[in-house]
């Protein structure tokens, strides 16, 4: 089994604060992390490797040179090899252009690593929150997709994916090769071991730029290849503080709350 896991290095959005005067995001000092959902995808791949030890896990990221740190972290956890997709011509790409570049990079990496049976992605990245790149990679490659995966299990040339749906879970069988995106499972992903961390530090990470991806359609990448444009960004208006209730006893507070809600026609 040959699995590719796509990862993104993202700012830890739980650490982002708002500048109260300028009303802008404070990005300085915000740590960069592996997108948590991509971590779940890597863990799903690692679990397949646990039961099928001849599995190879390759990680791929598109981003600046610094994203190598995220790739090294993935090697420290479970990946055997890593590739970075990085180039000036890729800048300004929206999800459609990004997924096209990644699909082209996957084909390039397959020349080295052999054909991938499965491509795992996080459900979405916590900075953009679009959940688009995974399904779009599947479409560019012409592969079937399963989104909102919790766990995956290999059975011959079929991947059995436990998928989260609104009212429970479904077990979906999908033919390989396929793309699966992962959401948060019931368990915590494994952490790097010291031995693997040391190997990760020594790992060479090849960089694929626009020249390396010969034959890429330049009209489909970067700003020019992106159908969407960001018109503006703004920090949302915070709600003004509401009514605080703190009566003599909890019982009285509850009754007051009910009266207020009832009076406002909410109940």
């Amino acid at each position: 089994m040959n699995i590719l896991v796509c990862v993104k290095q993202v700012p830890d959005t739980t650490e982002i604060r708002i500048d109260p005067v300028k009303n802008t995001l404070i990005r300085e000092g915000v740590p960069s992390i592996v997108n948590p959902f991509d971590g779940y995808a890597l863990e799903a791949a690692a679990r397949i490797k646990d039961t099928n030890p001849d599995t190879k896990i390759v990680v791929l990221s598109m981003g600046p040179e610094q994203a190598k740190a995220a790739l090294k972290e993935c090697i420290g956890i479970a990946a055997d090899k890593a590739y970075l997709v990085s180039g000036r011509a890729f800048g300004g790409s929206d999800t459609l252009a990004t997924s096209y570049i990644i699909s082209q990079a996957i084909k390039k990496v397959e020349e080295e690593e052999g054909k991938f049976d499965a491509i795992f992605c996080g459900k979405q990245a916590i900075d953009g929150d679009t959940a688009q790149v995974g399904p779009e990679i599947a479409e560019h490659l012409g592969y079937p997709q399963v989104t909102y995966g919790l766990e995956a299990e290999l059975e011959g040339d079929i991947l059995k994916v436990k998928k989260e749906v609104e009212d429970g879970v479904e077990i979906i069988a999908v033919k390989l090769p396929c793309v699966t995106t992962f959401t948060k499972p019931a368990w915590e992903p494994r952490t790097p071991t010291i031995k693997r961390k040391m190997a990760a530090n020594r790992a060479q990470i090849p960089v694929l730029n626009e020249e390396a991806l010969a034959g890429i359609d330049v009209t489909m990448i970067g700003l020019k290849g992106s159908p969407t444009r960001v018109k503006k960004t703004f920090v949302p208006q915070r709600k003004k503080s509401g009514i605080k209730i703190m009566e003599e006893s909890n019982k009285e507070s509850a009754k007051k709350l009910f009266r207020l809600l009832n009076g406002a026609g909410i109940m």
Partner: protein
Amino acid sequence: MEAKTKDLWVFVETNEDGSAKNVGIELLTPGREMADKQGGSLVAVVIGNNVDEAVRDAGIHGADKIIVVDGSEYGHYTTDAYTIALVSLVEKYGPTSMLIGATNNGRDLGPRVSCRLKTGLTADCTGLDVDEETGNVAWTRPAFGGNLMATILCPNNRPQIGTVRPGVFKKCEPVETKAEIIKEDIHVSREQIRTRVLEIIKEMESENVDLEGAEIIVAGGRGVGSPAGFAPLREMAEVLGATVGASRAAVDAGWISHSHQVGQTGKTVGPKLYIACGISGAIQHTAGMSSSECIVAINKDPDAPIFDVADYGVVGDLFEVLPVLTEEIKKARS
């Protein structure tokens, strides 16, 4: 592709019983206004199995036309069947814009369809506007866990597509329907559908976890303290017809399953009423619920950040406040 009409489409997702999911009907409300600004018709697109009820629902909620694709292969959602059907409809009729509800299925379908059509998609929108001159939709959506809002345009490609969060818009009052119904015969073979459902496991038969479609959510966090601590929340949820939600802390502690989780690594919700019990209100949680119409917070800690987003905040013990509140509601309703 080029648009062939100025029509605005709303994709109406259906349930397996042939009824419409709430969000599809909700989206006819902004859809009406947008279609009028774009100078086109408001078209509902209903795909499913035995969907008469969904079609009627779309009609009485203001659609000018309803395109219907009805077939047994659409009874249970699959990416492949729905993508084939929706793409072939778009190619035939050429709408200028399309709205899709940002449910799990909508967020699975949207990128697949827009990528096949090589057009732009804006995910998870909470605001919609139309530039009347260009007909461009201004799609507004949260990013960075709700810390930043971005307005996105898709100026040169058609159709411009967006997924829109459930609960952001409200269903309009029912009207007498005069919708033209267009039936399209699109059939997808077994071989074209590359996934197969082996098993469907519903969460605890009686318990409803449709958080995205919920009108009222009663959610618990660290302050609930144990799996049994959810009992007073469940009791209140039953009286209100509400869905039980949870913060990441409660899920991580193993007190309730992840399908209940609201927030950045869980569901994004927008109910009419959100009652947060023992939830501190970390950004990771509020990112998923701050667009609720009315937020009630019950927390012992008067400085808990949840009070910053709450409309009504009770400083107190949820185990004493909730039962009294539940009793009051029961009394008022009997």
